């Protein structure tokens, strides 16, 4: 998805980019310590699982990334500050959604963090590690697998999409306005995983559609509808942004009436030659 083409391992990459960042060194030390502690002291099942699957290193790496990029707002142990909420219990899915879409780290504390180009450190690997770390803090929704976001029934998904999503995101997911500077973003740039994660975690102004509200297979249906419709070639010509009558009205006035006025001017400009009497 992110395709940075960096082949060196993440530690080297990070060190190269922050050679003088003392904080990073401290973070690394702390991260190793914390990771080491997590590995050494099997306290809860999440940590157990992490150890069992050999992901303890990921957690440590994630923690150091967290300290470097997230802690200034979310607190050094993700407890939350006045600038940002606690991340205990938000789950890996929330991290993957926010970071892989560029929303986090936030550029400025406005009403809503917009999707933006990813920072250089944001590789799939780094996101995975960061997510693994946050997951250890208190569980929460996990990152969906490829199978979970594919193979849905688009028609069924369409019905669910219309019932649950379009009142904010518009009928083709083109996005819509919300109050106080917030908005429902355009879904057409979101990856299937991000759509799934958004439903599972309810980022920013969005409500949570957990598995008891929208079942996992229905989430796949919705994703199938969104991806299928956005992949369509508009059969009627230019889609005009697919936002309905506003652009259509604009076109009929700007193109239609202008064209007809020019035609009228051209036709009446052709004066008949005065015939001799």
């Amino acid at each position: 998805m992110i395709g940075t083409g960096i082949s060196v391992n993440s530690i080297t990459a990070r060190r190269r980019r922050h050679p003088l960042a003392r904080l990073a060194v401290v973070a690394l030390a702390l991260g190793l310590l914390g990771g080491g502690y997590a590995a050494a002291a099997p306290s809860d099942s999440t940590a157990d699982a992490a150890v069992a699957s050999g992901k303890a290193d990921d957690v440590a790496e994630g923690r150091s990334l967290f300290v470097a990029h997230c802690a200034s707002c979310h607190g050094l142990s993700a407890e939350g500050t006045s600038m940002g909420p606690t991340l205990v219990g938000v789950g890996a899915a929330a991290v993957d959604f926010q970071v892989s879409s560029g929303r986090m780290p936030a550029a400025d504390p406005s009403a809503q963090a917009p999707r933006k180009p990813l920072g250089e450190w944001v590789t799939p690997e780094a996101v995975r590690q960061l997510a693994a770390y946050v997951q250890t803090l208190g569980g929460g929704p996990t990152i969906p697998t490829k199978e979970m976001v594919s193979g849905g029934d688009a028609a069924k998904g369409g019905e669910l999409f219309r019932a649950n999503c379009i009142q904010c995101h518009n009928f083709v997911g083109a996005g819509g306005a919300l109050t106080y500077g917030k908005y429902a973003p355009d879904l057409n740039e979101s990856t299937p995983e991000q759509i799934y994660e958004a439903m599972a975690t309810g980022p920013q102004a969005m409500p949570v559609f957990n598995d008891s509200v929208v079942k996992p297979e229905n989430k796949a249906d919705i994703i199938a509808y969104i991806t299928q419709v956005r992949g369509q070639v508009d059969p009627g010509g230019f889609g005009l942004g697919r936002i309905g009558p506003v652009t259509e009205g604009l076109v009929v006035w700007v193109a239609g009436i202008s064209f007809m006025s020019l035609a009228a001017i051209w036709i009446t400009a052709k004066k008949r030659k005065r015939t001799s009497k």
Partner: protein
Amino acid sequence: MNETPKPIAGTASYLDDRLGAGSFLKRNLRKVFPDHWSFLLGEIALYSFIILLLTGTFLTFWFKPSMGHVEYQGVYEPLKGVMMSEAYASTLHISFEVRGGLLIRQMHHWAALLFVAGMMVHALRVFFTGAYRKPRELNWLIGVLLLTLALAEGLTGYSLPDDLLSGAGLRITEGVAISLPIVGTYITFFLFGGEYPGVDVISRFYTLHILLIPGILLALISAHMVLMWVQKHTQMPGPGRTEHNVVGAPFYPAFMAKAGAYFLFTFACIAGLGTFAQINPIWLFGPYTPADISAGSQPDFYMGFLEGALRLMPAWEINFLGHTLPLSVLIPALVPMGIIMTGLALYPFAEQWITGDRREHHLADRPRNAPVRTSIGMAAVTFYGILWLLGANDEISTHFHIGLYETTIIGRFAIFLGPAIAYWITYRICIGLQRRDQDILSHGVESGVIKRLPHGEYIEVHTPPAEDIAEHMRGKKQIQIVPGDDDKDGIPPKGVRGPIGKLRAKASKFYGTDHVPLDGDGHHDGHADEHAAVGAGDKPRELH
């Protein structure tokens, strides 16, 4: 060779003897039409209407105006197996399976938009040139009626496919109907045949849309054309043009060729839009269920001003003896429509009353020469435009990153301030343009030749304006003012007595006073060189 072949001559005289076609054509084919590009704008609506009739007929062959529930089994994958009304399913069928169906559907919809837009620009032309004045007031009323009916025709039309977007509009229609005091509930139940949405509304709208309203439209358009034909078209002032003649080209062949060409242009415009620009993609909206609603739901553009009014309106309501009067729906639904349509309908009569002008007018006004009318018109356009713009406030908010509430708050101020500002600006522009005309008439136009006078002064030589342009400018006619001054005994003249009469006299003075009178023929010659010697004129120019 010059003789007409017998079969043609025989048939022609047979018909002529029975229908009187020959003399009718002889009388009418040479009918003269004045030439000005803006006189063609109404034809956009006329030709769009013809295209609407043709494409609409095509659509009726496959459209099923029924709210019966069916499972979709057509070719559009993302809706396969979804339950929907037959109306929606048949519209999908037209769009995806009927050959040429989507093109015709899109042309029908674009033609509808162009129809209303054409009526609007035509109405603006008629208004700003004062072409609604006697003897054309009734034709103006027909026009206002046509515009109103076109809105109803549009609403019933875009509701027919029973898609989610139009369903939102239908829901608002129901909300407006039910908000009417006392009769609201009855009207709603009558319209929908019971509780919303019921099972009748699509078939009822269908009858209204394809039979009743187009029938009335057709009759009124015919009446509009016949009246125009009989009363003759107004013309812009110019050389040789008077209140008693029409200068232009005869209907046959010149005007007919132009009108025919203009029909083809209209057709090209609609076919081009239908081919290249997607309109009303109902498959993206999904079938209507009252439970679903989409962000960015907007009506077609001509309903946008009502949508905007609804969005601007504060949530006011009155509860009285257990009855609710929802002002937040009633006011936006009725007041802007009332101001605009009633205002349009009454304007010719109000103007007549204020000016006391009962003369016939066949020469059109240049908008600058009736500054108060033009300014009132621009204020109304601004009022309409702000409402229209605010109907899209959520799209503006999303795409231009302006807060949604900010757009509403700005709109609430702008709807009162905007028309006032537009009035003032337009008035100043009109006066400025009048001064420019007067300047050109009395001092000529700059020739670009600089001349040095014997005593050393440099002047630019002004040349008289081209004769046709000068005539065009000289076509300015005084707006009549009701005599309002008291006579020597201090008694005001008849018609302006009493408080209403005084108001009338005041309004008349305000409406008709010419602040920039043309200088007339006073110094027509003699200032080819000696521009500096020509004063500002004999009459003092009063400006405020």
